[in-house]
């Protein structure tokens, strides 16, 4: 079966209510499923409105992220948020709203630098919110390949802060 034929099949499928199609011909097996979450409760989906992938919900009860200091409107989501990482890389995101600090105190050396290999349990940064200093530890052994936030900058809930490469 040619790729073009498969494409056509997908197109046909998308225009119908059929969600799953299995086809076997000349020893080739094709199985096409619409990308709907498996446990979707409301099956009201139109062709143009199919969720491409199940939504990743980090904490169902999480309140709306709060604007950082002085933000009068929610900042645009940073481009990194949509970034797809290779499987050997890990994104470290902010578990809470607050101010991002790279060092334990002003003038002190940063906890980590780019290219540094860190062990699980090692502190990456501090996020301060309402005088609560949250030491963020790594849960992976890896090399820091990117630091996405500047020292002293506000971070949103779920905002990417570091990218680690597993080693």
């Amino acid at each position, binding site marked *: 079966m040619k790729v073009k034929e498969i494409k056509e099949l997908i197109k046909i499928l998308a225009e119908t209510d059929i969600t799953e199609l299995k086809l076997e011909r000349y020893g080739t097996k094709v199985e096409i499923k619409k990308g709907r979450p498996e446990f979707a409760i409301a099956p009201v989906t139109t062709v143009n409105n199919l969720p491409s992938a199940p939504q990743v919900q980090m904490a169902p009860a999480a309140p709306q992220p709060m604007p950082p*200091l002085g*933000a009068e409107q929610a900042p645009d989501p940073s481009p990194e948020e949509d970034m797809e990482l290779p499987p050997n890389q890990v994104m470290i995101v902010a*578990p809470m709203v607050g101010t991002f600090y790279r060092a334990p105190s002003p003038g002190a050396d940063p906890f980590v630098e780019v290219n540094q290999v860190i062990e699980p349990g090692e502190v990456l940064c501090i996020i301060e919110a*309402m005088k609560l200093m949250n030491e963020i*530890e790594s849960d992976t052994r890896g090399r820091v390949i990117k630091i996405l936030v500047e020292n002293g900058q*506000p971070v949103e809930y779920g905002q990417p802060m570091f990218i680690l490469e597993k080693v």
Partner: protein
Amino acid sequence: MQGFGEILDLLATGEYVSGEDLATRLGITRAAVWKQLKTLRELGYEIVASSGKGYLLQARPDRLYPWEVTKNLHTKVMGRHIEYYDRISSTNQRAKELLAESPVEGTLILAEEQTAGRGRLGRNWFSPPGSALYSTLILKPQLPPYDLPKLTLVAAVALSKTIARELHERPLIKWPNDLYLQGKKISGILTELSGELGRVEFLLLGVGVNVNQHPEDFPEEIREKAGSLRSILGKEEKISRSGLLRSYLQILEDEYFKALRKGFAETLAYCRQYSATLGRQVEVSDGERVLRGKAVMIEEDGSLTLEVESGARTRVFSGDVSLVGPDRPGKT
């Protein structure tokens, strides 16, 4: 350190007790009694001895010895295990070191003097021996990360209530973590979290209270802005730090478990009612930028809403708040 609660109770009845009686009632030898009395004297207890009558406790030292703190302490969690130091870098620092040993929840670190007391992000905290209350509690709150900062407010509320109960004057809370009495800062709270991402293990609740310092004990540059409970209230006698601490542990335990069980509504209501910040012009600094405005609301999530000059409203979740205005000290 060995506990001396039992022998002190026997010595503190107001009547002399003989060495033999002490030995019998404690189930130890007379030599052991004598040794304990010697140690107690070295620790600063004034014990008078009268031949034929025995011993009598005349005065206790102004120290936060664990057996003094736990005497009549009815908490289930807070302060049930105490580490006490004459002198230490900081109680939060010691608590951090202790985390490797999986401490029980409610473990309390106490010190008479801190040599490297810290404020926010390593700022120094003034710390003369024996006059202030330095404590860190180790807690394991089962809360999602975005709720954890509100525990700073819970501690501030507990401390404000403690001082109101013990000294009949209610400090106001400068959002989110300082207490002010008659316009002067008397206390600071430094909360630290430790644990892997998304999985909180321990929360360190560090509280420093200026209790018995004289005004001249403070460096000149902060004398106008900070004070001790004793100096502000004009007390002749020293205020009992162990009494304050006991009361704080009990009130905090109530407030903390109430918040874990029922949420933060009452905590927030108290913070709004007894706020040193709301209605005032403030400056919030995150180290690089400064935002000025009028503090108008403490929100459900614990954040502070400012109304800036243009009339726009903005929420503040972190940073240093200074009160600006005619009758208030600035940042302390």
